[in-house]
């Protein structure tokens, strides 16, 4: 299982699942990171964390430990 935290900057991938069932996972789903959606990793902050994503036509920033919950297509 690959997670979004390991994806390269500039790459586009598809969300497969969100692991965990707490509020953080729910918030990620609610922000539109649902199975099947396309995500581009646009960049990362100076110290490598958080990362900047593009999905559903908007920009979202999440920390790497949250990105690790996003399972992506291999």
């Amino acid at each position, binding site marked *: 299982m690959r997670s979004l935290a390991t994806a390269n900057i500039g790459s586009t991938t598809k969300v497969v699942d969100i692991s965990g069932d707490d509020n*953080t996972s729910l918030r990620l*789903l609610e922000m539109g990171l*649902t199975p099947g959606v396309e995500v581009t990793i646009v960049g990362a902050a100076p110290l490598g964390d*958080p990362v900047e994503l593009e999905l*559903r036509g908007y*920009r*979202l920033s999440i*920390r790497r430990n*949250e990105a690790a919950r996003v399972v992506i297509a291999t």
Partner: protein
Amino acid sequence: MSSTKARNETEQQSVGTDMKLTVALLGNPNTGKSTLFSAIAGIPTRIGNYPGVTVEEKVGTFLHRSHTIDLIDLPGAYSLKAKSPDEQVAVDVLHGNIDGIKQPDCIVVVVDATNLSRNLYLVSQALAVGQPVLVALTLCDVAESKGIHIDRKKLSEFLGCPVLRLVAPRRDGIDQLADALIESRDWSGQAVPEALSDYLSQIAESDRPVAAADAIARYNWIDDITKDVLSFSTKHSRSLGERIDAVLTHRILGTVVFGLTMLSIFSSIFWLATPLMDLVSSGVELLAGWAESAIPEGILQSLVVNGIIAGVGGVVIFLPQIAILFLFVAVLEGCGYLARAAFLMDRLLVGVGLSGKSFIPLLSSFACAIPGIMAARTIENKRDRLLTILVAPLMSCSARLPVYLLLCSAFVPNIAVGNTWFRLPAVVLASMYLIGILVAAIVAFVLSRTIFRGPPQPFVLELPSWRWPQPAVVGERVREAAVSFLKNAGTLILAVSIVVWALGSFPKPVIQAGVDPESAEQQGEALRQSFLGQAGRFIEPVVKPLGWDWRIGCAAVASFPAREVVLGVLGVIYNLGDVDPGEEEGAGMLIRQLRSATWDGTDRKVFTLPVALSIMVFFALCAQCASTLVIIGKETASWVWPLVSFTYMTALAWIGAFCIFQLGTTLGW
């Protein structure tokens, strides 16, 4: 004349009929909700806090075709499955669960046309509340310029509610929206669209947790809609916004631009505000002079001049700093940079238990902790916000600067450090700032791992698309901050000033015959005999380990309302009369007096380098600022946190001062 006539007709029509309508404005953050609010309702008629929480309550009233419409601006929410106090308030208001606030007759969901898909998630939940729903599509002009087209008619059919197009700053579509609000009275509630119900009914079959399956079901429904409703006229190309982003969130360039931006804001809080602060300050002096001549000498004059005007006036001079800071914050927030600043600084601040969003409040606190603590309102997460508020006063504010400057120039030898061109006083001055930052980092680190320990707080931050800040919204932000600050100055800070004045003025000294009661000696004696002076002597055993005599202790106690007061108090107490620390001559005299001061009954000097350092460190870390404590109380809606701040900061200040004094004495500085 015609407008008067129209108003009369309106008044007549409204007599005897219930024409009052309550409408809630719901929407994701950054959807132009505030712009829409000020376009419809203008300046809010009521701003306050919702009972028990610090979430802002904003209500505006406007008249439309003889109907009085109360518009409630709900805090920005991504979901009605509340995860933050902001969202909880939105849910409670929508269901009429807050005392004193009527359940809205109609819900207007503000939807950002450039970001339809995610915005429809909140719409899908609003449709289930049961009250009539109206969708207001904002930023349509921006969406169209990006080549995004939305078929409003189809969207309205999918949702089962009206969808109106709005360009709020131009007031396009506002009348239609108001008309629709009035019509909504005749609707028989709101039904959840069938297609959505179908998706939701399949949740039971999913093997995911219910909440997750619910979110996925809603997005499945949304994907069906957007497939039909959204069309793009241009192939998605790199837009201007994306190119700006490529620079501003770039690892190196972004950091450089960020540093320059923050540096210019930081310096403008000081330099741009200085002339205005001087203006306010001379206004205060003028007022004091006028009061002195208008009120006969005596207790009343002293109360007005030394208590009220000196106390409140000393705080009001920070108004320009607050206005300028909030102007910058509102502009940066309006154009979308604030979110990027949080993005860039997050990793650094997470290391000490804070969050990227703590950066602006902490930076602002170098000017003054009051606007800094107020700026912490932009942090939605309650824990991060509280932690930021608790450490913000440790940043060395501009009120500490005169204290540092005086003591540095009086007692730190003006020699070079090693073989560098750095002078020792400058190094000591810089160290005071560093001590504050270092201690704040340690405190935040410790608190976040002890009493503020809890599950990790998600950092899910939308980076809104770049846009021009709306002048109306910026103006409203500045006005709000200024009014709220002045209100505090006029009430709580006023009360504290009067109390400290009374403690310093009573009991009245026994005046010996032939002594001028106005003389510096007599004023010093009066303070010595006052409750404040008694307190100073009472705490002498506590301050002795810091190298202080009772007079410094008394000055520290008296400077509880504001740190800079300590200079004036030192002046009075060392028999100098009133000393204005801002004036070269006065400061020079104060320095000479302090240098020659000796311990009672001996010729041992009171002020040595370790003592001066101990005073500086104490003032760097202490919570000697009544206004800050008052603001902490207001912003946290609790008296516990100001008490906690005062206690922990005073304890740290004492420990810090003790360490530096003992170290300095041992090393024979």
